[in-house]
């Protein structure tokens, strides 16, 4: 099995791109990734593209040919959709295609356009990721679903809103220097606590923003990187995916995310890496409580211990395990179909040493990314390592 290298990464700034089409956003990220890789567009053999709500936001289904053309590629493309994990699965399938020997050069990433809709319309569109019959009809929104998980977590393990506010403050602090982040500003624990309620016990600053943006990665085989003398020092050495029942009501334990634990176990095994060898992680903090549950599912903390991680400083930039040095979904932004690719782009930059926050992890060699769909009914985990 051949190894997979990240030859190049490309991102649009995350935020509000008023009036810009999804195809133009993705083209910007794709061209940036090809430029970063030093690979020509006609070398790409297939595009794996993540997108969740384009049929609702832009009335555009069948997006793969649209964005393949916009990026100037000469190959076919496939759209992947697993809600907010859409780009994560797109990358995972690209990794598998390269490993199989079928392809040497893949472009993988995703795009979401969201700010052209009203908040109520975005709320309606994101709710499509939940179970229509058994959850959405009962008024479950995306924040509402994570609020149900947060309440169940507090009841089972303890913790409170102030613990969650520390997660928000940490991730905002990390975003200050990230030129791609939607909110390059700090938020204090007090500000987070005082923000208005969205879905109790979660408040506005527990939630990621509504974001336009795109991400792209050029993934190549080790052999292709060597033959073409590419500067591709970071390898994707582990990939895993897990699934769970879609509706929270059907889960054994609403305060846990076993799909992420399954994805992590597969990715750790695939990479031959133990959880305590991971130097830094980018996790799917669509809501502050989601970061807490991710830390436990990824085996970084025991059940009930993840809630205090940010407050104790374990996961801050100076902690033992910096988490979401990009700012995370919380402060960097969450264009849902792009996020899984963005996390790997940011991790690659952090490990290569060309991220504004690379100075927090100068000796890091192993990074992990965790991308979740819905209320973690889908989860994708990747392990990235410095290969040379």
């Amino acid at each position, binding site marked *: 099995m051949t190894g997979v290298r990240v030859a190049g990464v490309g991102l649009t700034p995350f935020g509000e791109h008023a009036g810009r089409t999804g195809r133009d956003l993705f083209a910007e990220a794709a061209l940036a990734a090809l430029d970063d890789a030093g690979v020509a567009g006609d070398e790409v053999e297939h595009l794996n593209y993540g997108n969740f709500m384009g049929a*609702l936001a832009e009335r555009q289904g069948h997006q793969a040919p649209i964005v393949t053309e916009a990026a100037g590629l000469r190959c076919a493309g496939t759209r992947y959709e697993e809600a907010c994990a859409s780009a994560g699965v797109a990358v995972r399938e690209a990794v598998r295609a390269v490993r199989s020997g079928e392809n040497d050069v893949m472009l993988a990433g995703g795009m979401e356009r969201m700010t052209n*809709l*009203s*908040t*109520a*319309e975005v*709320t*309606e*569109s994101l*709710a499509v990721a939940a179970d229509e*019959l*058994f*959850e*959405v*009809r*009962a*008024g*479950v*929104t995306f*924040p*509402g679903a994570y*609020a*149900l*998980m947060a*309440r*169940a977590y507090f*009841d089972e393990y303890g913790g409170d809103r102030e613990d969650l506010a520390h997660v928000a403050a940490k991730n905002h602090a990390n975003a200050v220097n990230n030129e791609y982040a939607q909110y390059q500003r700090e938020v204090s624990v007090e500000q987070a606590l005082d923000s*208005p*309620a*969205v*879905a*109790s*016990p*979660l408040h506005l600053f527990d939630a990621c923003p509504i974001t336009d943006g795109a991400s792209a990665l050029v993934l190549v085989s080790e052999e292709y990187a060597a033959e073409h003398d590419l500067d591709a020092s970071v390898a994707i050495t582990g990939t895993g995916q897990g699934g769970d*029942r879609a*509706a*929270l*009501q*059907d889960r054994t334990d*609403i305060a846990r995310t076993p799909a992420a634990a399954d994805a992590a176990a597969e990715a750790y095994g695939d990479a031959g890496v133990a959880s305590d060898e991971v130097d830094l992680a980018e996790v799917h903090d669509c809501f502050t409580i989601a970061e807490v549950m991710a830390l436990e599912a990824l085996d970084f903390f025991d059940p009930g211990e993840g809630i205090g991680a940010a407050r104790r400083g374990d996961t801050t930039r100076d902690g033992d395990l910096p988490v979401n040095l990009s700012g995370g979904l919380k402060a960097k932004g969450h264009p849902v179909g792009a996020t899984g690719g963005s996390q790997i782009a940011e991790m690659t930059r952090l490990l290569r040493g060309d991220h504004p926050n690379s100075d927090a992890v100068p000796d890091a060699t192993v990074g992990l990314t965790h991308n979740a769909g819905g209320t973690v009914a889908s989860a994708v985990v990747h392990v990235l390592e410095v290969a040379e």
Partner: protein
Amino acid sequence: MSDADPDPPANTGYDEWADALADGGYFIECANGHGSLPPRRVCPECGSTDLSEEPLPKTGEIATFSEIHVAPSGFGEDPPYVTAVVEFGSVRLTGIVRDLSAEEVEIGTVVRPGAERNDATGNRLIVFRPA
């Protein structure tokens, strides 16, 4: 984006199940005692296809809840409203809590199920009232 549709398409299995909540309701049980909700051809827990309809317990306990302040467009229910997941033996149901304020709702509160129609969408709406 949502237009009010007083007569939405049928969802056979689900519709009959929701309507039956007015008379106490039922759930699906497999030969190994696992609970689930319709429409169902196979037990998602063990794969058994030996399924039967059993009466739902008359009351259940709130397992978790949230007071939701931002509703989806076109949902019809005025926020804030309280959505809860309620445990009825081997199955849980999700619905909107009636006749209790958010301050009065707690994990463990005992409620009984019911079904209404959402006036804006025409969809069935699962509700819970204090037992």
